[in-house]
């Protein structure tokens, strides 16, 4: 139940919405769009369409026109003669009309390209027909099979999707996109062990693949293998610290009882830090400096921001103080000594207690970061 007195007013909400902070788009974005448009080749349909819709200049030269007319008449006459000689009278002429489907049926690559375009344009039914055709013309091409599988996926046919990938894999066991999509396919069907097997193959080819790592973590969680689950989340977070999935990975890791990575709010930013590195006395200082760089960057950009470092160590106060003092010194090295007052320290000679999802945890070593904007005037004391 929400305390209505605590609720923010609608007027205040409207005001906050007008101040909603925006991300700065990359500086080169418009140029990149224009380059992409320049590189883009017009499709067959666009060429045909532009030929018929664009204006053309026609120069009329009587002599050339007469010659062209003569050639045309001659061609027509010869065509009629040849047709009467070669064609049996009973032959049907219905299929002689050149059409796009006939042209595509002879060219696997054309079928593939058009089919892929249709799939991207969210027309999976039409795409599937052409991609299947492309696959029949070139059964050994794994890319065709991959896209055919994706067309089945777009139709919601997981069984056929899987068969497409499996057919293509017989010719190429190392095709990463096929292995990855097979992993996804089994995962979506709830066949966890099979899915895990394919993600393992992906990770053997590309050890840091984000999708395979993340889903492997989820599967281990579902299988109740918390040891492997923790190890996978740690591997994921060692490589990826930004974006929604990274924050979710920290939640999973913490829920599994491991706090080597934690989310800290520094100013407006949420930052993922490896607490284990920061609190390990044996760890080289350079590793800790690298770990602290995102925090240092926020402090550099916000001169009014103050940071409180709070250390916990079950082995005693001295150990806790040493840990946070070292982190402070590293940050001051980067920020410059006049900024030293902005970073304050607290330490406790006890384990850190925390509660997540109704589970209580005790960390023998723990680090908390609190940031706040420096107050210009002394605040009133309230009773």
């Amino acid at each position: 139940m929400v305390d209505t007195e605590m609720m923010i007013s609608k007027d205040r909400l409207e005001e906050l919405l007008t101040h909603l902070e925006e991300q700065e788009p990359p500086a080169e974005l418009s140029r990149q769009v224009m380059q992409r448009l320049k590189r883009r080749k017009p499709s067959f349909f666009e060429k045909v369409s532009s030929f018929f819709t664009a204006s053309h200049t026609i120069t009329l030269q009587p002599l050339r026109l007469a010659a062209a007319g003569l050639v045309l008449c001659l061609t027509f006459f010869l065509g009629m003669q040849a047709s009467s000689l070669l064609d049996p009278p009973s032959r049907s002429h219905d299929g002689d009309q050149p059409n796009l489907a006939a042209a595509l049926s002879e060219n696997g690559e054309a079928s593939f390209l058009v089919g892929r375009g249709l799939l991207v344009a969210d027309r999976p039914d039409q795409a599937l027909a052409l991609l299947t055709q492309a696959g029949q013309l070139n059964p050994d091409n794994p890319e065709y099979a991959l896209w055919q599988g994706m067309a089945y996926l777009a139709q919601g046919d997981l069984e056929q999707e899987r068969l497409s990938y499996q057919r293509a894999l017989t010719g190429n066991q190392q095709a990463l996109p096929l292995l990855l999509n097979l992993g996804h396919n089994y995962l979506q069907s709830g066949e966890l062990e099979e899915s895990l097997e394919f993600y393992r193959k992906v990770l053997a080819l590309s050890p840091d693949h984000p999708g395979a790592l993340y889903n492997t973590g989820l599967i281990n969680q579902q299988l109740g293998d918390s040891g492997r689950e923790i190890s996978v989340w740690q591997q994921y977070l060692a490589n990826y610290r930004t974006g929604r999935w990274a924050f979710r990975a920290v939640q999973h890791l913490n829920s599994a009882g491991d706090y080597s990575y934690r989310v800290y709010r520094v100013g407006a930013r949420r930052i993922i830090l490896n607490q284990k590195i920061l609190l390990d006395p044996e760890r080289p200082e350079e590793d800790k400096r690298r770990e602290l760089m995102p925090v240092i960057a926020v402090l550099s950009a916000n001169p009014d921001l103050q940071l409180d470092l709070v250390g916990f160590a079950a082995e005693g106060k001295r150990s806790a103080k040493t840990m946070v003092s070292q982190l402070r010194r590293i940050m001051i090295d980067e920020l410059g000594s006049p900024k030293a007052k902005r970073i304050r320290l607290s330490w406790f000679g006890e384990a850190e207690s925390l509660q997540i999802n109704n589970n209580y945890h005790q960390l023998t070593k723990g680090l908390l970061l609190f940031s706040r904007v420096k107050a210009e005037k002394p605040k009133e004391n309230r009773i």
Partner: protein
Amino acid sequence: MEPSDEQIVHQVLTGRKSQYELLVIRYQRQIYNLMYRHCQSADDAAELTQELFCKVYEKLDLYDNGRSFFSWLYTISMNHARDWSRKQQRRVFNSDQLEERATPPEQQPDSRAEHRQQLDLMVESMEALSTENRELLILRYTYSTPLKELAGLFDLSLSGVKMRLQRSLAALQVRMGELEDGRHRNDDQ
């Protein structure tokens, strides 16, 4: 005087393709941020924005001059972002989305930090709104989009837009209250 959107579209369609960059520059911020709200990644947002502007370029001849260009662009962008989200979400366990958020303890606010914190809280709470309601609020209050234009964009009547805005604000208000309440309880423990 800067050319209007409609004038630029006309110029592009009649062969002055380089003019399209003016439209990209004019609206890249709004579109990039819309994409960012969906994918929460700067790289993905940049890629999606580029894809979107290329897609719009290809569809430019379908643009109806009687309608606001921004509305038209935003509609295509929302669909593009939604498609992207759908593709991403299909591959993630449902249980992953149902889990409760676990956030670290927050600092006590002072006068200026309070504003900052309320903004953060609002951004976090907006994730609980549907895409349409969230974008409706942002378009109305952050970009000051006229109600009439919003009505066209979301296929609603004027009164429908007003009602939806009020409901979205109320939902946001409640969600912020819930989150704040949860944090206070955590602090108390």
